[in-house]
């Protein structure tokens, strides 16, 4: 709870910086504030406490995911420093990002459906604005418009689902809903199941699962690169945290009804994301499709509904966020130079900057799921959870689509190492290079300590 207040306070502080002229110090203030919020959150570990008439429940699950979200945002601020320098209204962007983070944290700690809705809306509305923040760029406007239209529609589905569930149970509270479903497993009315399906549709949209993924490539492609990085990491993490929390606590007694739906959607998402990513020439668009594919893998863990899927999702999201941020840091440099982000832009990077090339390779290998990177262990634990729950066909599909994934991730690695060029048109140095090394090294280190992370939850 204190973390939400701290971060909202930071957001307001960013707005005040415009009025009281301390814009120069704002960047440092935000970094310190986020670090403090992470500290406050960690201090609350193992003290499950419920706030505001049981609307918010800060348990270890919520803390783990909020710390992940805040750490990713902290790294994101480091990564996008150059973006903030070039932007005239930097404090407004920082404020909106911090408010979006607030919404994301609400989505990890809700214990009430109305709180879920509030969190989701705070996050989504901030993202609609940020997508269109490159005001003079048509693509950015298009992306904001598309995201808003589709997002509003999906929110409608989610709300309708919440309304139907409320109609049956008579409460928004997750524990009340769980007790009610537990007691009436065999005579739940049809509209309850309709409510679950509508909730699923809304959440599938938010995590960009097939067949609700069509918005993702266009929105990811059109939005400013740093904002895309934020969407691909923070928004996705928050959406999955909410998804798991909702379905694992509320509807665990009727899991036979929804695990098959999620399993089929997971299979579709993996295949659609990976196959479509192969055909992309723009690296940014390719990463958008790859993020769709990653959503598919995480959905597998949701379908497994076992005690181990919590930790598996957490580990996977850490690995995925780290490598995504690393790659997007490079893409940001490329886009700032107004270069096309065709794969060929990476030609010869291994010769001009071997360190950066190695780190990008680590990020790519982690995303592709090659041992010993963190991404491999993320996939390993998810596949294990799915196998233990008897989803052999799903695991086979996942392995197959991972192989397709290796193909397009390696295209970038190949371009860097076998490209004929001696130099690249862009340079990676200073903070972005440090950042890249950080995410590469962390990807390896987390790969070594996976047991600890998985058993944390």
């Amino acid at each position: 709870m204190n973390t939400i207040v701290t971060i909202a306070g930071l957001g307001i502080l960013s707005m005040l910086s415009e009025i009281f002229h301390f814009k120069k110090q704002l960047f440092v203030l935000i970094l310190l504030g986020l670090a403090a919020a992470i500290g406050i959150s960690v201090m609350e570990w193992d003290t499950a406490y419920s706030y505001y008439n049981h609307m918010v429940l800060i348990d270890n699950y919520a803390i783990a995911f909020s710390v992940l979200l805040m750490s990713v945002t902290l790294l994101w601020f480091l990564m996008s420093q150059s973006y903030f320098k070039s932007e005239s209204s930097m404090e407004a962007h920082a404020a909106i990002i911090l408010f979006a983070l607030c919404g994301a944290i609400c989505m990890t700690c809700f214990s009430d459906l109305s709180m879920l809705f509030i969190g989701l809306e705070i996050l989504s509305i901030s993202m609609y604005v940020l997508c269109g923040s490159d005001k003079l760029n048509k693509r950015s406007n298009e992306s904001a418009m598309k995201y808003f239209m589709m997002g509003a529609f999906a929110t409608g589905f989610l709300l309708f689902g919440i309304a139907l569930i409320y109609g049956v149970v008579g409460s928004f509270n997750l524990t009340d809903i769980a007790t009610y479903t537990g007691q009436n497993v065999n005579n739940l009315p049809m509209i309850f199941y309709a409510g679950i399906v509508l909730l699923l549709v809304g959440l599938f949209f938010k995590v960009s699962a097939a067949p609700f993924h069509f918005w993702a490539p266009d929105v990811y492609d059109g939005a400013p690169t740093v904002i895309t990085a934020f969407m691909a990491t923070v928004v996705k993490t928050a959406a999955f945290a909410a998804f798991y929390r909702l379905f694992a606590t509320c509807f665990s007694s009727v899991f036979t009804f929804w695990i098959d739906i999620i399993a089929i959607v997971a299979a579709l998402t993996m295949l659609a994301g990976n196959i479509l990513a192969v055909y992309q020439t723009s690296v940014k668009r390719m990463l958008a499709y790859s993020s769709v594919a990653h959503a598919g893998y995480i959905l597998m863990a949701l379908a497994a509904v076992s005690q181990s899927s919590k930790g598996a999702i957490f580990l996977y999201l850490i690995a995925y966020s780290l490598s995504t941020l690393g790659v997007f840091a490079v893409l940001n440099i490329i886009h700032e130079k107004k270069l096309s982000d065709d794969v060929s832009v990476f030609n010869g990077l291994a010769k001009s900057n071997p360190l950066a090339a190695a780190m990008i390779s680590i990020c790519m290998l982690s995303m592709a799921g090659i041992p010993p990177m963190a991404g491999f262990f993320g996939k390993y634990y998810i596949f294990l959870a799915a196998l233990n729950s008897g989803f052999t066909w799903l695991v086979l599909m996942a392995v197959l689509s991972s192989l397709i994934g290796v193909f397009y991730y390696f295209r970038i690695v190949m371009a860097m190492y076998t490209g004929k060029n001696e130099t690249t048109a862009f340079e990676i140095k200073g903070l972005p290079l440090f950042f890249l090394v950080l995410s590469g090294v962390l990807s390896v280190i987390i790969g070594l300590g996976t047991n600890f992370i998985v058993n944390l939850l």
Partner: protein
Amino acid sequence: MTLTVLLSSPADYLPVAIMFVVAMGFVLTTIFVTHLLGPNRKSKIKLDSFECGIESKDNARVPFSIKYFLIAILFVLFDVEIIFMYPWAVNFLDMGMEGFLKMLIFLGLLFNRLLYILKKGALKWE
């Protein structure tokens, strides 16, 4: 949890269906009947969008200054936020000091935003 589920049968929705038929029927009947009863004079003036004595001129789709839009949207924002004060004012005594402090925080945030808007020059007309 003493709530029981009221199992509803389709027959319970009959009043809704009747209401729907009545509503649709009223609209359709009035449209149809006015066509039958009213005299049918078609002239340019009769077909104008505003036929109230003042001659209409130009197109309605003229570009207007974006500042109107900005001010209108800011008005709506602040107007809606102020609505929170009504339930607070009604329950002022019951909520006591805590409610008062909460409202102060809320108004402080609102004031912060007003300052921000002024500082950004959103209300400057020039």
